[in-house]
C-alpha cells in the first residue's frame, strides 16, 4: 500500500505518497466543533429551566419550547452530523487510496451546511416549527438539507468508484449505507409526512425519528469507530466476518422499529408487536459490532492510558452496548408502561447521541485534526480533562435521569399521587442533571478550545 499524508504533512512525505488536500474535512470539522460549543450553551440553559422555570422567561424566543428544538437540531445536525461528515471526507479518500473526488464540491457542501444551520437558528427561535420532532425545520430548509446530502453523496460515491483498492473496508459500507438510508429516511420524515395526517403521519414521523438515530448516526458513527479504533491502537480489526454480520443485520432489522415510540398508544397492535420483535433483534447487530471492537482491543487495553482518542472510542463502545440494551428492553410492553414518556427517555437518548456517537466523533476529531494541520495537539492534558469531564458529567446525567425516570413512572402508575407531586419529586433529579450538564459543557469547552487552538495555533508547534 502507498503511504498517505495530508497536504500539511507533504514536506515530510516520501515520493510517490498520496497527498490528501483535506480542505473539506477542515471546514466541516471546525464549524461542527464551533456549533458543539454554541449549542452547548443552549443545552445548559434548558437544563437550568427545569430547576428555575422563570429563568429568561419573559421573552418568547427564549422559552423552553423554542430553545429545545434548537438544542436538538443544533446538536444533531450542526455538531454531530457535520462532524461525522467531516470525518467521512477524511476517512473515505484514505481507505480508497485516492484523493477526494472534488474538494470544490466538498467546500460548497460545507458552505451550504452552514447556511442551513444558521437558518435553523433563526427559524426555530422565531417559532417557525413544523411540529414534528427531529423534523422541526421548515420545508425550505429541508430542501437545502436534501441538496447538501446529494452533494455529499455524489462526492463520496465518486471517490469510492475511483478507488484504488478493490476490497472495501467495513467503514466504506457503513458510510455508503448511511448516505442511502438517510436519503429515504429523511424524505419520509420531512416530506412524506406533509401528505398525511394523524396516526398515519405519526407512524412516518417515528419511522424517521427512530431511524435518524438508527440509520443515520449509527452507521456513520460505527464507520468512524471501525476506522479509528484499529488506527489509533495500530491493531488490525478482530474479524471481517463479524463486521459483515453486524452491517447486514443492521440493514435489515433497524427500519422496522419506529412504532415502538407509540407503544400502548393510538396505533395498531400488530404494528406495535412487530416493532417490539425487531427491537429485540437489534441485539444481533449491536453485539456483533461490540464484540468485534472489544476483541480488537484484546491485549491492547493498556493503550487507553496514553491515548485520548482511544479513551473516547472505547467508552463510546461501552455506551453503545448499554444504550442498545436499554432500547430493546424498554420496548417490552411491561417495561414501557413504566418508563415511556418519563425522564428515562432523555437519559437514554443522551447516552446514544452524546455518550456513544459524539464520543466517536470527538475521538475522530482529536485523531484527525493534528494530522490534517500537521501540528501537535495543543494540549494533551486538556484533552484528558475534556474526556473526564464529559465522562463523569455524562454518567451523572444518564444515571440520574434513569433513576428519576423510573421513579416518575412508578408514581404515574399510582393514580392516588397527584401529577404535580410527581413534578415536585423530580426537582433533586433536575438539579443533579443541571450540575452534570455543566460538567459536560466544561468538557465541550475544553475540547472545542483544544481543537481550535491546534488548528489556528502557531506553526512552531508542528509535530515531528
Amino acid at each position, binding site marked *: 500500500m502507498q503511504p498517505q499524508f495530508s497536504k500539511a504533512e507533504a514536506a515530510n512525505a516520501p515520493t510517490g505518497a498520496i497527498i490528501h488536500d483535506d480542505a473539506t474535512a477542515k471546514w466541516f470539522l471546525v464549524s461542527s466543533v464551533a456549533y458543539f460549543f454554541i449549542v452547548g450553551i443552549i443545552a445548559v440553559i434548558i437544563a437550568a429551566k427545569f430547576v428555575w422555570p422563570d429563568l429568561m422567561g419573559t421573552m418568547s424566543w427564549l422559552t*423552553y*419550547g423554542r430553545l429545545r428544538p434548537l438544542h436538538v437540531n443544533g446538536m444533531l445536525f450542526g455538531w454531530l452530523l457535520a462532524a461525522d461528515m467531516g470525518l467521512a471526507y477524511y476517512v473515505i479518500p484514505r481507505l480508497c487510496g485516492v484523493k477526494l473526488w472534488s474538494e470544490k464540491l466538498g467546500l460548497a457542501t460545507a458552505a451550504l451546511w452552514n447556511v442551513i444551520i444558521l437558518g435553523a437558528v433563526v427559524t426555530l427561535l422565531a417559532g417557525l416549527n413544523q411540529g414534528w420532532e427531529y423534523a422541526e425545520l421548515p420545508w425550505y430548509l429541508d430542501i437545502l438539507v436534501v441538496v447538501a446530502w446529494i452533494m455529499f453523496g455524489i462526492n463520496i460515491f465518486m471517490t469510492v468508484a475511483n478507488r484504488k483498492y478493490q476490497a472495501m473496508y467495513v467503514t466504506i*459500507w457503513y458510510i455508503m449505507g448511511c448516505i442511502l438510508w438517510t436519503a*429515504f429516511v429523511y424524505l419520509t420524515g420531512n416530506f412524506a409526512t406533509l401528505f398525511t395526517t394523524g*396516526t398515519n403521519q405519526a*407512524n412516518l414521523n417515528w419511522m424517521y425519528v427512530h431511524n435518524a438515530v438508527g440509520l443515520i448516526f449509527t452507521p456513520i458513527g460505527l464507520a468512524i469507530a471501525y476506522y479509528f479504533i484499529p488506527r489509533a491502537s495500530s491493531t488490525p480489526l478482530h474479524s471481517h466476518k463479524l463486521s459483515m454480520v453486524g452491517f447486514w443485520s443492521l440493514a435489515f432489522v433497524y427500519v422496522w422499529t419506529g412504532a415502538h415510540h407509540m407503544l400502548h398508544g*393510538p*396505533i*395498531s397492535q400488530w404494528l406495535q408487536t412487530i416493532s417490539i420483535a425487531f427491537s429485540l433483534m437489534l441485539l444481533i447487530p449491536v453485539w456483533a459490532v461490540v464484540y468485534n471492537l472489544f476483541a480488537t482491543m484484546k491485549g491492547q487495553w493498556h493503550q487507553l492510558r496514553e491515548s485520548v482518542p482511544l479513551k473516547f472510542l472505547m467508552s463510546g463502545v461501552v455506551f453503545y452496548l448499554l444504550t442498545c440494551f436499554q432500547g430493546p428492553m424498554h420496548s417490552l410492553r411491561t417495561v414501557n408502561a413504566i418508563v415511556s414518556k418519563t425522564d428515562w427517555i432523555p437519559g437514554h437518548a443522551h447516552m446514544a447521541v452524546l455518550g456513544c456517537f459524539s464520543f466517536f466523533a470527538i475521538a475522530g476529531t482529536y485523531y484527525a485534526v493534528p494530522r490534517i494541520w500537521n501540528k501537535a495537539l495543543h494540549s494533551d492534558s486538556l484533552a484528558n480533562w475534556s474526556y473526564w469531564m464529559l465522562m463523569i458529567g455524562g454518567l451523572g446525567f444518564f444515571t440520574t435521569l434513569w433513576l428519576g425516570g423510573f421513579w416518575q413512572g412508578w408514581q404515574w402508575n399510582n393514580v392516588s399521587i397527584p401529577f404535580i407531586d410527581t413534578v415536585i419529586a423530580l426537582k433533586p433529579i433536575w438539579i443533579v442533571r443541571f450540575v452534570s450538564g455543566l460538567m459536560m459543557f466544561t468538557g465541550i469547552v475544553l475540547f472545542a478550545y483544544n481543537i481550535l487552538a491546534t488548528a489556528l495555533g502557531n506553526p512552531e508547534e508542528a509535530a515531528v
Partner: protein
Amino acid sequence: MFKKADNNALWAIGLSLVLFFIGGIITTVVPPLVDTSWSKPFENHDPAKGVTGKLVPLNEQQKKGRAIYVREGCWYCHTQQIRTLLADTKRYGWRGVDAPISTPDEFVYDDPHMFGTKRTGPDLARVGGKYDTQWHRTHFRNPRDLVKGSIMPAYPWIVNNPEEFNALVAYLQNLGRSKDWRPANDYEK
C-alpha cells in the same frame, strides 16, 4: 451474496437498499392500507357500542389556537394520548369518570400530529372542558400562581393578546371531546 458486496460497490448499494425497503414498506406503506381506522373519522351514535360522539374538523379559531400550540412547542412537554394503561384512563379522567382510551380515528384531521413523547406536564388528550377560561388566563400568565411547584413557563405574550389567547383556549377546550365521555361534568354545566 454478502461476500460479493466486499468488492462490488453497486452490489453493496443494491443489497443494502433491498434489505432496507422490505421493512420500510411493510411498516410505513402497508399499515394505513390495512388499518382503515387510521383515516376514518370517529363516529358512533349507539351507546351499546361504547362511548358516543363524532369527530368534526376544527373551526378557524381552533385551528389558529392549534398553530400557537405548535409554535410554542407545548407538545415537547404535553402528550395527547390516553394509552391502553389503567393508570392513564384513571389519572386523566375527570370527577370519577375514566378517560376513554385514545383511538386513531380521533386524530384523523390532526396535522401536524401532536401525540408527543414526553410528559414533563400532564397529558392533554382529554383536557377539553375541564378548566374554564379564567383558570387558563391565570395559568398562562403564571402557572405557579395556580399550581405550586409547576415548572411550566409563563406565557404573558399570549395572555396579553386576546385574539391569540382566545384561539388557544378554544383549541384546548375542544381536545378529546369528539368522544362525549362525561356529558354532565363539564365546567360550563
